[in-house]
């Protein structure tokens, strides 16, 4: 294994994904491949979810990862569902544990027979914006150590960035590079501005965030700066008025 400095995890994650994509535009499958290698798991799947019972597997690294979704949809229970509903990771290092069996009796039985001995479900979310879940599994039970958890969460963030870029309707390499290099995207004002813009435009939170990101990109300004302008009421998003550089509709 290559010795890497994980202290700037944000930058390192994209470099690692780039090793998988080899120059092609970044896609969720590259994130999955990188995460599988770094978290030392056996497979990964990204499920897009509109609700706890309406979802599709966007990408899975293998047949077992693909079935993670099916098992849970069939029986309406499982760590992916819980992660989505609770808005936080659900880490199950040992599917044979009493704890897991108590929480999801049917899922654990089926999945364990199917070769899944550990599952780690990380929601793809920005607050109330819930895009889906990033699922990792192991064929042998065992917890992820702190570094692997941190890496897995960072890969989930990266998948989230890609999915949000998809929501903007454009996903060029330049666009993704620009967004991933903007470290201000998690600031408080961005979340507040999301709420304000969703009211201003009469759209949902995901669209509001996409519009903020598109504006920031078009004006080459950090997202947090744009957000501060919105929060301090120097910038409004008006559905009737086309913002300079912004696509309408």
């Amino acid at each position, binding site marked *: 294994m290559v010795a890497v400095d994980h202290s700037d995890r944000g930058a390192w994650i994209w470099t690692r994904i780039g090793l998988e994509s080899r120059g092609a535009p970044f896609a969720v499958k590259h994130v999955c491949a990188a995460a599988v290698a770094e978290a030392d798991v056996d497979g990964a799947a990204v499920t897009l979810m509109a609700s706890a019972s309406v979802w599709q597997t966007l990408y899975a690294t293998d047949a077992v990862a693909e079935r993670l979704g099916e098992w849970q949809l069939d029986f309406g229970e499982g760590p992916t569902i819980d992660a989505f509903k*609770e808005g936080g990771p659900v880490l199950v290092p040992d599917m044979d544990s009493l704890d897991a069996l108590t929480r999801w009796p049917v899922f654990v039985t089926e999945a364990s027979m199917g070769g899944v001995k550990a599952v780690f479900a990380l929601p793809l979310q920005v607050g*109330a914006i819930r895009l889906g879940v990033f699922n990792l599994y192991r064929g042998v039970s065992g917890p992820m150590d702190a570094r692997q958890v941190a890496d897995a969460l960072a890969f989930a963030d990266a998948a989230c960035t890609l999915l949000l870029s998809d929501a903007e309707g454009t996903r060029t390499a330049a666009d993704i590079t620009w967004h991933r290099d903007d470290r201000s995207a998690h600031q408080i004002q961005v979340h507040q501005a999301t*709420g304000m813009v969703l009211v201003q435009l009469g759209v949902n939170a995901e669209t509001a965030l996409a519009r903020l990101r598109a504006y920031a990109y078009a004006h080459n300004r950090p997202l947090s700066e744009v957000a501060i302008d919105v929060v301090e009421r120097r910038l409004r998003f008006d559905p009737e008025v086309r913002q300079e550089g912004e696509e309408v509709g």
Partner: protein
Amino acid sequence: MMREQLLAEAFVELADTLVDDFDVIDFLHQVATRCAEVLDVAAVGILLVDQRGALQVAAASSEQSRLLELLQVQTNQGPCPESFQAAKPIAVPDLNQVTERWPRFSTQALSVGFSAAHAIPMRLRLTVIGALNLFMEQSGTLPTDTLRVAQALADVATIGLLQARTIRHHETLAEQLQTALNSRVIIEQAKGVLSERHGFGMDQAFARLRSNARNRNIRLSDLARDVVEGTERF
């Protein structure tokens, strides 16, 4: 001067919140508020570590934007990250003396009107999960018994945060912290919605959200999610 008479009331009130429909952010908000009152300091903030290793704002005694921004600066600079790394309290008796050490933090803290600060680690056995941040308008160090009570309140915050499940495993800790921080994001989004809809400032938006949740006996984070998703309009 620490207000001891408020201390017993604060503990009773905080113990009362350890119930089935426990809401982490609301609880931490109460801890921060009571902390400021009992310790008689100008402001209190609570930062929690996310699983990427960065400190994020979880709650504060006041939702004034300038205080939240001051806490947010401490993601990577200031007494809180140092306290977190060292697992020890860090005293800053005079913010004017730390302008080289922490330029952004000190400038911002001074501009808000604070003269001194203190950071106390939130510890669970051998793990540090965040920091309690005190701000004072007067420069100087806090008395030892005040700091002891501050540590006790930081410990209360830690225990309350993790009480929802038995903490045997590293996993549960990671899950709880991430969920708490994501709840915080939802609340910020909800503040934006209410602020825009009613013309409130962000702190008023938070107060309105919180009082609505309490009056209706529902969790703050659940109400916030409904506000952002549009299933709740007020």
